């Protein structure tokens, strides 16, 4: 099996990409004419204090040296300390990321199910009203600003109807599960804490729905296109000629083929979700990586910005690598 070689090759390329990401972010962040120390100290501190603080943080060294130092640190698994919190960035990420991951997973689950169903309906009933409806429905998801949809849903489901909880990951007086993965739902399942599980599930519905709905359109669109494409293929005609029922033709013969390109889009969509998480986490007050990076950006916390983006880039690349592998496994043509 040459799979190993392939993975090694891809991983090396990924390293290169990561290096580029670091370089780009480093460049962007450091040409910002701003002063993270100033942000840290607030407006009142006199200049002498500012200078001393810079020295403490090593921000007065030449940029090139700072870059080398940073790369050196990254190689050793050290993303530096956050200027704001003073804690190691790695520690911060490990604390925040599970929240984002959990949110993204639930969201992508929602968007995959919704997207694939809408896509199939659209394709099968092409140019009928079902097609129009499901396309408009899915496109509406990408048409509204995520934060606005989030607030409206909060208003309706939390404030007016009172069906779902508002903010956070758990209700106040629910005892959180012991931290194992950091993902509340997983941890509560692992520890058998059912109250926390149901509560956590209720809390994640709104943000995940908002996020997932926004990602639905791209999945629905590719499912539809791919399904339409597949339905005109010769092997579908063969299946029909074999006397297979419509259901078997669509779900057994067409869908399996149609889903192959959908898999690739899921990787890209995942990237979009991480992006949308920035907004959703703010609206729903979730302690995730998105908010962490936003806060870091707003305070120009260099190490946190770089560490956070680098990490997201890494996750994104890993997801896409696995998507490519899954793709190859799903499609026998790639194995030949």
């Amino acid at each position: 099996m040459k799979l190993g070689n392939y993975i090694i090759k891809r991983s090396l390329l990924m390293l290169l990409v990561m290096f580029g990401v670091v370089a780009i972010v480093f460049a962007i962040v450091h040409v910002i004419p701003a002063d993270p120390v100033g942000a840290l100290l607030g407006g009142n501190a006199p200049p002498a204090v500012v200078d001393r603080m810079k020295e403490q943080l090593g921000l007065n060294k030449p940029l090139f040296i700072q870059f080398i130092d940073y790369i050196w640190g990254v190689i050793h698994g050290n993303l530096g300390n956050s200027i704001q919190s003073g804690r190691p960035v790695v520690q911060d990420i490990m604390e925040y990321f599970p929240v984002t991951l959990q949110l993204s997973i639930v969201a992508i689950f929602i968007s995959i199910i919704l997207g694939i169903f809408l896509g199939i309906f659209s394709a099968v009933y092409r140019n009928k009203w079902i097609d129009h409806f499901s396309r408009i429905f899915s496109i509406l998801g990408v048409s509204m600003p995520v934060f606005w949809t989030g607030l409206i849903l909060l208003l309706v489901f939390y404030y007016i109807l009172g069906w779902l909880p508002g903010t956070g990951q758990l209700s106040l007086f629910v005892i959180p599960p012991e931290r194992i993965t950091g993902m509340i739902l997983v941890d509560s399942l692992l520890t058998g804490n059912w109250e926390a599980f149901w509560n956590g599930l209720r809390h994640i519905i709104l943000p995940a729905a908002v996020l997932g709905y926004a990602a639905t359109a791209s999945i629905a669109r590719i499912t539809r296109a791919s399904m339409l494409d597949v339905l005109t293929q010769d092997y579908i005609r063969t299946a029909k000629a074999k006397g297979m029922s419509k259901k078997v033709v669509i779900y057994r013969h067409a869908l399996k083929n149609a889903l192959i390109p959908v898999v690739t889009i899921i990787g890209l969509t995942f990237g979009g979700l991480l992006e949308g998480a920035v907004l959703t986490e703010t609206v729903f007050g979730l302690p995730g990586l998105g908010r962490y990076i936003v806060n870091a950006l707003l305070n120009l916390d260099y190490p946190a910005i770089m560490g956070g983006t680098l990490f997201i880039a890494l996750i994104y690349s890993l997801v896409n690598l696995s998507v490519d592998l899954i793709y190859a496994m799903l499609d026998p043509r790639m194995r030949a």
Partner: protein
Amino acid sequence: MILEKVSEFMEKRKPIFEDWKHTFYLWRKTKLATVGTIIVLIFVVVAIIGPLFVPYDPIVQNMKDRLQPPSFQHFFGTDQFGRDIFSRVISGAMIEVEIIIIVSMISGGIGLILGVLAGYFGGVVDEVLMRTTDMFLAFPGLILAMAFAAMLGPSLINTIIAISLVGWTVFARLARAEAMKVKNQPYIESIKALGAGKTRIISLHVTPMCISPVLVQLTLRMGTVILTAASLGFLGLGVRPPLPEWGAMVSDGRSFLVEQWWISTFPGIAIAIVVLGFNLLGDGLRDIMDPRLRR
């Protein structure tokens, strides 16, 4: 005499018109594309002539009339500065159009050129370009746009630059894929066999073929551009006030959502409709340009 010439000319070029007629027919057949086109047309028309007809100045404040609910005086109500939201939404259309056009030209242009070059030449050129797009693709666009916006300072032009710099990669990939497909087609080969140079082949023959997928994606992305602008606004990195940019209006009005819902709702609806329009149009264009449908 001239009329004859014209009719002769028309007669000769009938197939060209036929082709357009075909396109038009397909367009009319794809109902959602029709809807999308109409929305986008209305949007553009409103952007161009709307400001001439708005009942109030979109920028001048009138604190006496602040936070008025929708009424006949103010169709969409007024905001916290007493500005007429209807007028602001109408005037804002032009800003969106500007953002969309400039972003499309920058990111579509960069993407098309780089993508075609990479796709046509392959090898090292391709490798370098693809790794670069990987880098840009690897981190979420919004965060990158935020970083750019934070770096350059929030303003209309910086928003545009930020979104463009993030957005070109998609087009580069599309153009590259198309160029790779096209360059091995017999019709390009025959031009090569005729002795055409690389410049000629790329500019006259390959690039035109790569435009349509880029164009379709651009149309689809135009909606996203508005949304990204809105998201930047939400994080406080959007355009400079007091410009009536829709995204900024939605995000500025969001703290009034419970009591004065109209402030952010109307621009929000405007965004949703226009983005929907662009998406429908883009989907439709994709269908219309689909060679399988054309044959």
